[in-house]
């Protein structure tokens, strides 16, 4: 009986359905990556591509597992989709390694060149194109130094298991070297490890910098509690991270990254080849500068008027205002 059952299941697997499909996969689900997906789907709808009507959107999350990401990629291939979308580095890599013909659009990949997704930014031959979420690390460090002139040592909180964070850490190191700042790595592969190393090293740092690290993003409540207790300011590359107890945030809106990705997807659905499209970062107009003056007051930091003048979002007396 069991054997018959297994055989039936096997047979079913061989039979596949072929539909005009947009296949989306993300390595994990968290607010920033979910915003990317929403942006993509909204742009598709605005351009007349509706799930269930003229296209079929198939979404799979690898839930943080790389081997699941690979399995998802292989399974997507069998659907022969019109276009596949990989959100975050491992998912995009899995897709790119699974096919050389089906168009692939990646999104929220910090360093697509090092990840071997495309040979360079701009137009590339082949079936891969996408949007990078490379963040202006140098400017973030400069903002930190401008807001806190007497800063000597910066602690960088990241998970050395995240490829994007390793690249960002490298850029931060270069900027700090140029400005004569010391750097201390505060790393952890899990939330618990991260908080433990933060507690151990917080006394040695004058300020904290956080890139677009997924582990740090999910530990922000604890990180900001520790930092505020020790009167250490946090500057972040992600607005959502900065909103949780950060002093300054300067980075992209992930929904916008999703919308730009959606534009590429629409063009491919309309018959444009990926080799005609450019792999790019978002322009400076999509950058958002966030400042929390309540935190500044708490830490006795005097934010220069020049920064406040340019801020897009300012938190004052517990209320966030758009400028």
């Amino acid at each position, binding site marked *: 009986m069991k054997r018959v059952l297994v055989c039936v299941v096997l047979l079913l697997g061989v039979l596949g359905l072929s539909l005009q499909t947009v296949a989306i996969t993300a390595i994990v689900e968290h607010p920033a990556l979910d915003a990317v997906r929403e942006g993509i789907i909204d742009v598709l709808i605005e351009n007349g591509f509706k799930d269930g009507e003229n296209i079929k959107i198939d979404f799979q999350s690898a839930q943080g597992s790389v081997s699941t990401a690979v*399995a998802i990629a*292989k399974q997507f291939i069998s659907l022969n989709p019109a276009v596949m979308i990989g959100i975050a580095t491992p998912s995009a890599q899995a897709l790119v390694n699974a096919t050389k013909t089906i168009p692939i659009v990646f999104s929220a990949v910090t360093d697509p*060149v090092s990840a071997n997704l495309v040979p360079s930014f701009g137009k590339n031959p082949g079936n891969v194109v996408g949007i990078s979420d490379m963040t202006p690390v140098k400017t973030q460090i400069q903002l930190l130094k401008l807001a806190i002139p007497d800063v000597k040592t910066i602690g960088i909180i990241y998970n050395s298991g995240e490829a994007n964070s390793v690249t960002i850490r490298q850029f931060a190191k270069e900027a700090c070297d140029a400005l004569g700042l010391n750097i201390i790595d505060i790393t952890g592969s899990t939330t618990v490890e991260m908080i433990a190393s933060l507690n151990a090293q917080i006394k040695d740092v004058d300020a904290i910098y956080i890139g677009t690290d997924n582990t740090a993003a999910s530990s922000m409540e604890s990180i900001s509690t520790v930092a505020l207790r020790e009167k250490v300011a946090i500057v972040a590359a992600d607005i959502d991270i900065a909103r949780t107890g950060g002093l300054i945030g300067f980075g992209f809106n992930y929904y916008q990254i999703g919308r730009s990705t959606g534009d590429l997807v629409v063009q491919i659905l309309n018959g444009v080849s990926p080799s005609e499209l450019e792999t790019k970062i978002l322009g*400076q107009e999509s950058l958002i500068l966030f400042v929390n003056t309540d935190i500044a007051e708490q830490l006795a930091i005097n934010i220069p008027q020049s920064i406040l003048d340019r801020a897009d979002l300012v938190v004052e007396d517990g209320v966030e205002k758009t400028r």
Partner: protein
Amino acid sequence: MAILEQGLIIGLMALGVYISFRIVDLPDLTTDGSFALGAAVAVRALVTGIPAWLAITLAAIFGAVAGSVTGMIHRKFKVNVLLAGILVMTMLYSVNLRVMGGPNLPVPRVVAEKSTQSFEEMSGGTGLEDLFGELEIKTQGRALKTGSVVKNIFNNDLNGSDLLLIIFIISTVIILLTIILRSDPGMLLRAFGSNPSGIVAFGVSQDTLAVVGLTMSNFIVGLGGGLFALYSGFSDATIGQGMVVTGLASVIMGEILLGRVKFFYGLLSPIIGGVIYQTLLSLAMRYGYRIGFLASDMKLLTAVFIIVVIGVRQISTSDGKRKVKQEVKRLWSNSKISQ
């Protein structure tokens, strides 16, 4: 075809699990780590310019070393084999990050030169430059990373050549394994698995056999990890997560399908089980979302499946066998009536 290819590779890894869990009867948890180690070593070797064949051999050898370390910790320091495996697996997480030089290492494709540019270099600025005055940082030219042309053994174009290659590797492993396990020392190993204390009568050290068993198991797991990485196109720090359970599930599925068979066919059960596991996984992902099933639920289902199978075996071998059968029959007929 892709499912079959990936399933066979998972099956090869499961063969390693079969050796530790079934043949030498040592529940070895090193697998998660040695699978990732194999992946890391294989890709690192390719990046260094070592040919792919040598790269997967190295992956297997490093896996074997990891297994022997577990074996030594278990026998020499009298540490429970589960704990020894967990210790080595934990150590390997750090080792793998070192081997890869980072969390994630792609198999180099045909690339010429490349460089990682900062946002400011690519976009021409952030529009905040005027704020900084003397804090301005001049961007200096970055050294270009030079990649080399590396030939992967897999071409991923689903024309059957990858499948043949995988089948060839698996056949070689199984043939070698059969020869080894049918030889006199191999017989001792199998005897050790079924009756560890009985082996003393032959004047052979149990320690040696345990270490050899774990080494062989992780040799194959490392090979599987190396193949998986080359096949997937990259290695990642988390690539080995849950491999013990996946392997065990494959072994059990294969055993259910094949039933009681001769020793040689027993070696095939994890391979067949791996293919079935992969098929079920992709089916679950393909159709499961309609009932709210997520790919992430597969780990839960896998573990529950193992528990159920073990539970059923336990009951069916005990005195309660007949009673359970009657109970099932009764429920079955009841359900028919209610329909």
